[in-house]
């Protein structure tokens, strides 16, 4: 059993939501992409893009 599995029941819901993405067979970038895919992370200013699109 991994340490992640050992601790998961003791975490808050918001922290537990991160756990499924912590696949350590993947590198950090892949994990970050995985977290981004569920909108927990975002490094693009989408609002700015939306504004630009609206302007266009």
């Amino acid at each position: 059993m991994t340490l992640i599995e050992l601790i998961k029941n003791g975490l808050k819901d918001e922290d537990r939501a991160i756990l499924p993405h912590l696949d350590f067979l993947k590198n950090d970038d892949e994990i970050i992409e995985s977290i981004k895919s569920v909108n927990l992370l975002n490094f693009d200013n989408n609002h700015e893009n939306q504004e630009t699109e609206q302007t266009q």
Partner: protein
Amino acid sequence: MKIKKLSKLNNAFSYSYFDWDNINQINFIDKNGNSKTRDGAFIKNNILFAENGNGKSKLVDIFKSINGSTDIIEKHRDWENNAQEIKVILDDNSEINFSTHWSTDSLKDKFIFFDKHFIDTFVHSTDPHRTDTPQRRQQRGKNIVYLGNFAEYNLEIDRVNALKDAISKKNCMFSETESTKINGVLNLGNITKQTLLSKKHEIETLEIAELQTKKDELVKLETELEKFSQALKDKTKISILNQLLESKDNFSLKIKAVEDVVEKEVELRPSAIFSFTVAKGVQQTLHKIAHKKDFIKQGLETITGSTIECPFCEQKIKKDDYLQIIKDYQEIFDETFSKEEENIKILLSKYRTLLENLKDLQAPTQNQIFLDEAKKFITIQEVLPILSLSEQQKTIIKAELTLVSKKESKILEKVDGSNIEKIKIIIAEATTLVAFYNEIIQKINTRVKQLKDDANNGRLETKKLEYETTVKTLRNDIFYIDNKTVFVNYFHANDQEKENKKVVDGLERIYQVMKTKIVEEFNKFITDYFSVIQDFVKEISPSMEILEVAGEGSYNRNNREPALCGFRIEYNRQDCSNSLSEGEKQVIALAFFFARLKKEPNKNKVIILDDPITSFDTGKRKSTAELIQRESKDFDQLFVFTCDPLFREYCLKQISDRNFYYIFKTRGSSAIHYVPTKKETIYSSFEDEFKNIENSQGSNENVIIFGQKLRFCLETKIKEDYFGYSEDKLSSMIEQVAGKGKEKFEKLIDNKDIILQIYSYCNTGGLAHYPRDGSTSWNELKDKIKQYLSLDL
């Protein structure tokens, strides 16, 4: 789940072309004469014996690959271009074929291994005098260290920490990039990011459409502020500012007039005034007596109802001729008429005054001057209305005034042509205009008065500050509206940064929980395992003792000093924690392995031990075999691999319900050979086959197999059967030798040359290894086998 057969092992390590049934499936006639087949499939417990280099450990490696522990199975050097294949048959006869990846969900993590790797992983000894790198020491740990999952746990913790740092760094870069976009604007507005963020809601609610309005308002307020500043400099001038004058003009047609001695408010009715008149004849009469009025008045006073003579011409008054004249005169000189005429004149006069005032309507001339003075100190938006009539209106009034003059000159004549209705409209308009004018004046005066009061009461400074604040707010509003799009984008990025930070914080919490958990797990390990390991160590090696967990019962990741979870070891009452022999390490490792088996919650697993006794003395080998039997019985299946004949014998004696196999390498491929239960002395099994060799085919493969079997028989039989090589005690060995009898040993000595010749033939360059051709080789081998049998060893 049990492994029934490894039915095919093709090009997997040293197993180049192993086919289970080809080797192990044998048809035979039982004691009742029935034809039967046995395939030698694995059962619950399996002991596999092999000498070094025959493929024992490689078979363990194949099991590890099936378990998913590794995905590397090397090809045979001569078969680099050939495909690989592993075929496993389970006890439910299901078949699992592997050709590239060596594990499936059904077999993954189904095995528990004990081998050299296990010892190296979990048990370490560091000689303090040995040169060693810190990294190696760190990886391996000090003393006797069980790292268990802790090494993996550490990796997980490190990954979480690294991931947290990576996300945090990425978030900082994101934040910096977004900040850069607004830095220029913030410098322009001379505000900080904190100030900007504190006004987030305010800025978001600002309407871009209000920009121009606010700009206009700012211009006004800035002017106002400038005036306030001026006012503060010239306070004395403020005190002498004048109030503007209201227009006093009142154009009502209602006037005060005396009627019946009482003054009353009456309405001027020009039509009535202009209509005041007397009859034509009376007018002519009046014209005639224009210069004799008093005379006629006195004469008329003498006339009574009985007067018969005219008082002027003393002629008799003819009733019809003069009566009317007299009446007219009397009327003219009547007091009432006189009063009426006078009244008409007064009304005419008032009407004239009204008209003239109306025509000359204008604002008090000083007002503009007063206003201009006041405007130096305050902004007055109000503009003084033009207080005058239009030329057209004035023309109408002039015409009306002409009528008034005309009437005044001939008071008894009726005058037509009055424009009284238009005059009324003009009056109404003028009244409204005056009222509006006065209203503006009042507003201005209120401002002027307020200014003067403020100046007198020292409130100008406060007001100036209020204006300054308002101007500042307006300037800010305009700045924020001007840059609203940029700011709103930044707010959004800032929100995103906060959301990203939540993940970083979450990872930090996870990181902290993991650090706490690893300590918990370590303490749990101590609690759960220590006494169990202690007991097993005692059982395997009674003279050896693990005493305690060295250091504190904690796990300190920061200094990565695994010594804290080491054991202190004594062997024969000597502390040997820092200098364990290989055998001692093996005791610890095996004790831990058995402890793990005991703690393993899932017993549906296959246990594989690869020579667990290589460094053990005889006593430990025996106790190990006993422990293997006892501790594995609850598990699905057991495989014990050994190259040690003594341990093999212990296992065969101790472990019930077991099959026995030997692993042989023939013509470049390892193979698993089943040994029937009643012929567990391998060579006796082989000898049975030798006796029936005429029934065997002289294939190249059989040349190899039988050649190896012959070599094995010769060597093993002499070692074990003659000299008791597989006995654990000296007494047993002596008994074994003695039991053989002198004759046998004499025979052995007499035939030593033949024996060595056969052995040499099998070992070096002999037929068994390098067959020249099928029939020749087979015949040579058969001769050697017959020679061996004739020796009757």
